[in-house]
């Protein structure tokens, strides 16, 4: 499988996970606002990375796989750090 497609799939999966977490939040609980912000931020950032990848590939430019992987790792850390909050 093409590495580019694999990375984009990974990011889309990450986005889906953050969406699912967002849906599971108890919106009547004031304390969960940190979780809400973190999950939404992960969602937005993974979208930005997917868009970046798409734009680069569409323009025939090289995509930095290392940066995408590091970025994805950072997003996973951010996503799970959101779970630490009550």
């Amino acid at each position, binding site marked *: 499988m093409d590495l580019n497609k694999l990375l984009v799939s990974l990011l889309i999966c990450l986005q889906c996970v953050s969406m699912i977490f967002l849906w599971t939040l108890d*919106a009547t609980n*004031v304390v969960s*606002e940190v979780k809400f912000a973190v999950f939404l931020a992960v969602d937005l950032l993974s979208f930005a990375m997917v*868009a970046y990848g798409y*734009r680069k590939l569409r323009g025939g430019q090289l995509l930095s796989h290392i940066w995408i992987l590091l970025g994805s790792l950072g997003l996973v850390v951010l996503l799970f750090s959101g779970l630490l909050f009550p």
Partner: protein
Amino acid sequence: MTAENRSTLSRLLKWFDTRLGLSYPLLRPVPAYAISPFYWLGALTVVAFIIQGVSGVIMLLYYVPSPGAAFTSTQYIFDRVYYGRFLETVHLYTAYAMIMLAFMHMMRGYFVSVHKKPRELMWIVGMFMGFVTLGFGFTGYLLPWTVVSKSATDVGIGMIDALPPQISSLISFLVVGAGGDATELLRFYDLHVIVLPAVLLVLLTAKMYMLETHGISEPPGSKKDAGQIPIFPDVTIYLLELAAMFGAAMLLVSVIFPLNLPPHYTPELASQWIPQPDWYFLWIYQILKISVFEGLGLPIALGIVTFVFILIFLLPFIDRGSSRSIAQRPIFVTLGLIFIGEIIVLAYWGLKTPGQTIPLEEASLVLGGTAILIGSIVLGAFRFFTGGPKRTSSAKTTTHSLNTFGATAAFVIIVSFGALAIGTSLSSIVQIILNGADLISVTRLIMAMIGLACTIMASLTLLYMLDRRTGRLRTKIAFFERIVRPWT
């Protein structure tokens, strides 16, 4: 439909099209070089405005614009509304980001000369938009009716009285109304949620129209036939990418630094409070605190600030040179950097000295020193790195052979010494005027003047050395030759 009818219809459509430009390709492609965040600072400002609008509309559902209920309704949003505190924090931080982005957008435009022909009116419309953005900050600050917001706003409103009566009565009527807290809060609320958004949208439409007409300003020296990128999907995706990153940053900052609501405004509490405006007005506040501008000098201070704003407004008619390159506009680039430097220094100084009057000599030393330091470093850097606007090929080769680091260091030392000398001279003169001449003041003045003379001489010598080395010197001066010979 007959051929005659079709022809009449097409003629009619053409008539309208010629006047309204309906068939004109809306959102035309942008040049490839515009795919950079620096070209979309204005767009990010609009994104911030949209986030403001959405969060503001949700808060409107709970907020009550009356002195008795403004604070309690804000507190209700904070404590009882789900995600209310988060919403308030996002609204505030996005407002800060909007002001900062608008400022960066303006300064970037200044440095790359977007204000030049044919975009003069775009610049002026942009300036009006900047004013409206500051207006959002000023009017929104009062709405929570906290002691911090009310005290600072009262200082701002108090300044209106220092203006000429015809202007002050008009502004007073528009901003404060008939008088009293209730009218004042309602006016601010109306301005914040109705008038200013409407004005900003009109101005935004006008600016977008002009942007469509003139296109994105090309960087100096760029090729006209640079590749074009379609708005959809490429530029749209890029903009969404930037907007997503901006939104995520705002969300994270808001949860890391959540807002705390200051105490409720009461006249008793306000009397013990030192009023301090929000950071974006601190530089103006600091100017007003200079001792000479206190009391009767206030109109002069306001006049100076107004004059600065007028200069920025009329920039397209002041900076009329044909060159748009940064390297060929040393004076304007230097002035722009001095402006940024002074604003940062004034704002930081204002933050550190709340409520304190600033002595004139101290202000002269700090502001004059900042201007001289930045100005000299930037002009020196221009001379070292570009060799000036009219560089010859021989000069170009010798400029690179200069000991740039040493010369820059010498310039910085000379300029720092000069700033100190000027500041000391000014403070000594003020001291002598205020307290009369005594031995210490006069000695200090003489020493400072000698220091200043040495600085001027050292600067001239350094410039002479540079011109000598770059081959731009036309006449050798015996006096300087004697000084520079041991160094060359």
